């Protein structure tokens, strides 16, 4: 399938989602279920990654700042900005592309192969709307929340690592956190989170929904969904950085 055919099908799949729900209550139930699956389901891995990401940032920044003329609080400042600008939105979303993306692609692929999607269609339900839209909406709502949690945990991890290794005191770290803080950075991180959330839910949903064949194809679709999502996340990261910074 050529790139343009695939992209056209992707747009058509997205367009097909926007119809009047057959039963708003059922859609809401599915949306809440997806929020729980994506949000609560990924919280553990996001927390672990974030704490270690912040801790490693502190250690590596301290290792590189060897000049005695640079105050130690600068380490906290660098960790804060790195975590907010890049690590939390991008790294967490790349991990979520694997965790959430493969789950969405394989779930929809399995439903397609076992004719569950056909069963829903025959009942008179718009499956694009019922199966994809709540996942997409839940991702766009929940993933930015996860990114905010990741930012907090990343900074706390950095503070903890700085204290435990004796690189800088908690007071010096806190002082650095307040230095030259730009709220715009948080806006930029949130803009990235929303964009990435859309990518890592819609791309796997497209590949999963359009699976043809058997279990082998579900695996292939899942892998392709994760790979394409990661590439698109990195591409979007570059574009957003070039445009917004």
């Amino acid at each position: 399938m050529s790139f343009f055919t695939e992209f056209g099908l992707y747009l058509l799949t997205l367009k097909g989602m926007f119809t009047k729900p057959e039963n708003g209550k059922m859609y809401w139930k599915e949306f809440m279920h997806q929020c729980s699956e994506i949000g609560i389901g990924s919280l553990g891995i996001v927390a672990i990654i974030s704490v270690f990401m912040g801790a490693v940032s502190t250690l590596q920044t301290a290792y590189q700042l060897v000049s005695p003329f640079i105050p130690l609080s600068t380490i906290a400042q660098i960790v804060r900005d790195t975590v907010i600008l890049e690590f939390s939105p991008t790294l967490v979303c790349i991990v979520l592309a694997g965790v959430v993306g493969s789950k969405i692609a394989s779930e929809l692929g399995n439903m397609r192969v076992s004719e569950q999607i056909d069963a829903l269609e025959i009942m008179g339900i718009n499956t694009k709307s019922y199966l994809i839209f709540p996942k997409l909406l839940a991702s766009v709502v929940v993933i930015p929340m996860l990114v905010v949690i990741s930012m907090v945990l990343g900074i706390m991890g950095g503070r903890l690592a700085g204290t435990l290794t004796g690189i800088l005191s908690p007071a010096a770290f806190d002082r650095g956190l307040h230095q030259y803080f730009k709220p715009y950075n948080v806006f930029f991180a949130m803009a990235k989170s929303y964009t990435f959330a859309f990518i890592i839910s819609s791309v796997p949903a497209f590949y999963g929904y359009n699976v043809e064949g058997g279990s082998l194809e579900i695996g292939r679709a899942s892998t392709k969904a994760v790979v394409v999502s990661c590439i698109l996340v990195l591409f979007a990261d570059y574009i957003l950085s070039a445009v917004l910074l």
Partner: protein
Amino acid sequence: MYIGAVRRLYPLGRFVINLLMIEIKNIKKAFGDKTVINDVSTVFKTGKCNLIIGTSGSGKTVMMKCLVGLFEPDSGEISYDGQNFSEMNEEHRKNLRQSIGMLFQGSALFDSMTVEQNILFPLDMFTKNTPAQKLERVNAVLDRVNLQGVNDKFPGEISGGMKKRVGIARAIVLNPRYLFCDEPNSGLDPQTSLLIDKLIKEITIEYNITTVINTHDMNSVMEIGDHIMYMYQGIKEWEGTNKEIIFSKNKLLNDFIFASEFLRDAKDMRMLEAEGKIDKGDIDELLK
């Protein structure tokens, strides 16, 4: 007076009954260069088990998918009770689909839901009944398919035959006017197959619905085939009833239906019986 009124209303009744059916006219469907269905026309009548039979790759599944709107035919017309399905807009189709029930080859039950939730799903989506009314309906259809005590089980925890019954229960929970069954006996033992066939037949008569069944199973053909369409390489090769199939001279049909020596012998005996050369007593004696 009443007899006169009934006589006057009889043609109207016949007209209405004739409208309650699925009619297909000159359906064609191709995938690329390969024509899968070629100019097929037939009528699937209400209150009857209409069977589509044929070898693998003969176009049965594509035909069924065209009938329920999962595939769009390239040309031709599909009418439900006189309404042209091909010309319906999406909203109209959605409404019609709510009166369609379908049993899939693999049952297509939702893995993450229990049996009860699977059957509740169409009720939750399309009705405004109270939870108690919905539950009552779920238990009623489960009783109808002779399944009790499985409400809280997941599809992975029940047997293939039970899954088919749950599939039937889900298909009939909204009181459909049309029931489609894709290979309802696949993967089932002969005894369970017969039970499923019997169930589909009973439901068809009881609910007076139009049932269309895709099958390979010769037991089903003989047991419940009120109207049988045999497809061969995308065309309608033969059409008739389970009584007529015995006496058919169509070579392709006979090669397909009576593929085994046992079935060929059975056919020969039935033909000899029909011609009066042997009687039923002789057949019974031979079978002993």
